[in-house]
């Protein structure tokens, strides 16, 4: 069973030759697929849109009443203006990073909690594992959005951080589950026993020896967690529980309130829908690509 | 034994079409079965024995493909049948007792229903009560109580499951039953019982049986005729007692020698080396890298199949020069790695 498993040193050692050669090698052995690269590129493009956009379009155009409302696209307003008198392009440029930010904050915290809990559960097993398992299983069956609505409704000030925290508190269960299974398999490997004989404590082993091995799984769950966090934040904002007026979700809220779709103002409702769609598409591509990365055996199947 | 054969396999060849250059998994295999005859096919894994069985039933899945040869059921060619003709023939004329007793029954269907299913597919009795008695009869014949019909497969032991599989195979009194390693994954005692059940059922239905296995002892005890497969080739075929008492092919000889003896001192001799992979099939006779008798001709050309006497075939360059297998020229080569190298060096 352990014959084919690589040894500890091989796995923990930093890859030689930097990112590019690592990429090339991954590409060759089929672990880095076009899907993964495409997803990352698309995701980076979306971030760049928010980062570089402010260079060309001033923030003031994204404020309510800055321009005449309901204008179709023209030379002055490349994507027209919305019903609240905002330049749609400017609104998109300043909304997109906000939404991505919430997703990243919530995703990173959620996966961070997941890593720690998975290590605890996988290493100490027994009652620790049982309690973590029971709580996460129960929370999994509760519709997260319902709890989030209650939380968001009571937060007097909704910021990216507070909302991110709230979402993270409900998005650690799936990563925990995924990585716990991984921890259980890693801890049975020979070099863990070697480390144990070498006198390292269980906690040291867990964090120093096992953690590096579950990082690929952490990356895979991060994509999942970011995706579900973006979904939750967009949903909350679309219900009117957003972090102010600049986020993709609140763009949806306002276009629903003003019936932009029924009025046929495609330049208003189109851009947020397309950006949200692309954001989820990039995350989907990454997570499909990650599947192969995490589990190279998938390559054998058609 | 003068009756016309129920099953004739002629020059059967099966290829895996994934990569060009792969040797055939079944190469030019010819044998026939008379009514009521029990033929055992023996071989290591990868020798093509299961592939042969699946080819006869036309159940091969891609990338495996029959590329040459004929399979005649009576006087009808199975190779030229269309899918619906094949369905009609399966179970009613050629039935399978599958490998892997554990997984060959549908886990979410009651046993009785799975027996009934096959009968119904061939327009068998339709009246509920009639079918129920028929199912009970079949179960009784394989030594199972009738209430097994109401149970699910996971409630049965491995041996019971395999008996159910035999009951299904015998349900329409087929002319031929193909038992593909029916005893794998069963313990020794249960193996004997299952083989005995198979023999019992075979006698009653007067079916011919093609028993496939890797255990020379088990197969030779059951079968009238034994065929030995190596590297996709049928290297020897003959009456069971002759195969055991005076094997002609070196491989058969080594298989027989490796049988544990019940009395006297154990003389357990394994066969050094590994069976060849399809991607690294040696030139000439596929067995030559492991064969102590091997000489130049064995490396150069594939030995033809000779029929020295009625019902006795062998494919080896020692014949027809010799009339029986001579003593080996030198002690068999001992180191495995050397053999492996030889096998690889000889690869096309």
């Amino acid at each position, binding site marked *: 069973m352990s014959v084919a498993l690589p040894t500890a040193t091989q796995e923990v050692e930093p890859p030689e030759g930097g990112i590019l050669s690592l990429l090339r090698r991954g590409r060759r052995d089929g672990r880095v697929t076009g899907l993964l690269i495409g997803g990352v590129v698309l995701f980076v493009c979306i971030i760049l849109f928010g980062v570089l956009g402010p260079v060309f379009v001033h923030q003031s155009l994204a404020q309510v009443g800055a321009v005449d409302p309901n204008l179709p696209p023209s030379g002055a307003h490349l994507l027209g203006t919305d019903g609240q008198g905002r330049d749609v392009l400017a609104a998109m440029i300043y909304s997109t990073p906000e939404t991505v930010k919430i997703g990243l904050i919530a995703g990173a915290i959620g996966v961070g909690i997941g890593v720690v809990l998975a290590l605890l559960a996988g290493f100490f097993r027994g009652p620790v594992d049982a309690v973590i398992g029971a709580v996460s299983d129960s929370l999994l069956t*509760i519709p997260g959005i319902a*709890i989030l609505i*209650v939380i968001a409704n009571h937060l007097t000030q909704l910021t990216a951080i507070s909302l991110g925290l709230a979402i993270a508190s409900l998005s650690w269960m799936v990563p925990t589950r995924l990585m716990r299974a991984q921890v259980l398999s890693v801890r049975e490997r020979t070099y863990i026993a070697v480390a144990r004989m070498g006198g390292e404590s269980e906690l040291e082993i867990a964090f120093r020896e096992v953690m590096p091995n579950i990082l690929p799984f952490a990356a895979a769950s991060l994509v999942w967690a970011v995706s579900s966090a973006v979904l939750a934040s967009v949903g909350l904002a679309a219900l009117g529980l957003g972090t102010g007026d600049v986020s993709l979700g609140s763009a949806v809220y306002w276009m*629903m309130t003003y019936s932009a779709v029924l009025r046929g103002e495609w330049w208003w409702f189109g851009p947020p829908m397309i950006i949200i769609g692309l954001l989820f598409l990039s995350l989907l591509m990454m997570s499909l690509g990650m599947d192969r990365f995490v589990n190279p055996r998938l390559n054998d199947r058609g | 034994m003068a009756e016309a054969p129920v099953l004739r396999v002629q020059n059967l060849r099966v290829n895996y079409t994934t990569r060009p250059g792969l040797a055939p998994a079944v190469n030019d295999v010819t044998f026939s079965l008379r009514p009521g005859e029990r033929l055992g096919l023996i071989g290591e894994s990868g020798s093509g024995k299961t592939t042969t069985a699946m080819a006869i039933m036309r159940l091969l899945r891609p990338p495996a493909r029959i590329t040459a040869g004929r399979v005649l059921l009576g006087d009808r060619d199975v190779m030229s049948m269309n899918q619906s003709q094949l369905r009609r023939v399966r179970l009613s004329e050629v039935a*399978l007792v*599958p490998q892997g007793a554990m997984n*060959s029954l*549908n886990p*979410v269907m009651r046993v009785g229903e799975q027996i009934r299913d*096959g009968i119904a597919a061939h327009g068998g009795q339709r009246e509920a009560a009639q079918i129920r008695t028929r199912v009970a009869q079949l179960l009784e014949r394989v030594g199972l109580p009738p209430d097994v019909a109401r149970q699910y497969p996971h409630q049965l032991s491995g041996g019971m499951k395999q008996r159910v599989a035999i009951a299904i195979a015998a349900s329409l009194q087929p002319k031929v039953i193909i038992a593909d390693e029916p005893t794998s994954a069963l313990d020794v005692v249960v193996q004997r019982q299952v083989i005995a059940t198979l023999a019992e059922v075979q006698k009653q239905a007067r079916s011919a049986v093609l028993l496939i296995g890797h255990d020379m002892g088990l197969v030779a005890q059951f079968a009238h005729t034994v065929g030995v497969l190596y590297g996709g080739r049928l290297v020897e075929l003959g009456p069971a007692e002759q195969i055991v008492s005076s094997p002609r092919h070196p491989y058969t000889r080594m298989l027989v020698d490796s049988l544990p003896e019940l009395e006297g001192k154990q003389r357990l001799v394994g066969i050094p080396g590994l069976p060849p992979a399809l991607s690294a099939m040696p030139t000439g006779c596929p067995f030559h890298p492991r064969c102590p008798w091997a000489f130049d001709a064995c490396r150069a050309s594939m030995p033809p199949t000779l029929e020295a006497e009625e019902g006795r075939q062998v494919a080896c360059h020692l014949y027809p020069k010799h009339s029986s297998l001579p003593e080996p020229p030198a002690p068999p080569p001992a180191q495995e790695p050397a053999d492996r190298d030889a096998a690889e060096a000889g690869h096309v």
Partner: protein
Amino acid sequence: MRTYVVRRIGLLIVIVFIAFTANFLIPRLIPGDPIQAELAQQAAITGNQGVNIAAAAKALDAKFQLDKPVWQQYLAYWDDLFHLDLGYSIQNYPETVGSEIRATIFWTFGLLGFSILVAFVIGCLLGAALAWPTAPRVIRALGPFFMVLGSIPQFLIGLALIFAFATILRILPGGGVIESTQVVAFNFSTIFDILHHSILPAAALILGLIGSWAVGMRGMMISVLGEDYILFAEAKGLSPGRVFLWYGMRNALLPQLTGLAVALGTAVSGAILVEVVFNYPGVGFLLFQAISQKDYFTIQGVVLVLIATLALTLFIVDILYPFIDPRVRYEQ
């Protein structure tokens, strides 16, 4: 079997207990006095409804017994829940939250139940077809298509459908559940009108839900088709249809059923916004209105009902599952 049921009931109670307690604690753990803040805000927004505010404030005081210790408040909270008393609605005072939910929940059940069922059936059939080695190219292309649709929020699909079918083509209504000119009665034309209005919201949910089930089913089916019992079934001379449905699908479908239960949560979250997008008068829309009106009681009530319903559904599925899957039934 009995221990299984007992354990499952235990889990149900734990889930409901945790969720309801969280619902009680969250408002009290967050600093500040949100209820007072809300009331003040309420007064500011709807200055002309002074009567409601006063009455609601009284109801609030009585309800929360804010002067009493937290554990007494907690007991009172459970007492109310056992009496199915969810308090009064602020936005529609003096209507109770209970009656608000009763008036809306059947729309949600109908829409959601129908959509989930249809999506499950289509998704499983599609997934099974995708696993078939000789599936036509059209079907193969549908896999990625539904996967992408499944990854984006369902309300986006809804908005796109409204734009296409209501704004541009004008062949289907883009919102509501009944035409304002329609005389509501239990007759054919009313039912037809409701169905007519439900096509687009149902389509949005169905399109969004198919993907995940198709993907899951495809994976299951591929592994099932490689099983020995499929080969044996073919060796029995059964028709391909019989093999596919009774030996393949039936085995692949069972794990999918557990997936169905787990996916319910996602479906409910998605349905809330789909209802909002379509002004569909279900609990999702009620929730949306309550949020924009800062109607604290209604929000709480809807959330509690959602959680309880979902937990109960999961419980029922888990209890029924052994009757469908014989392997589980006897292992207990």
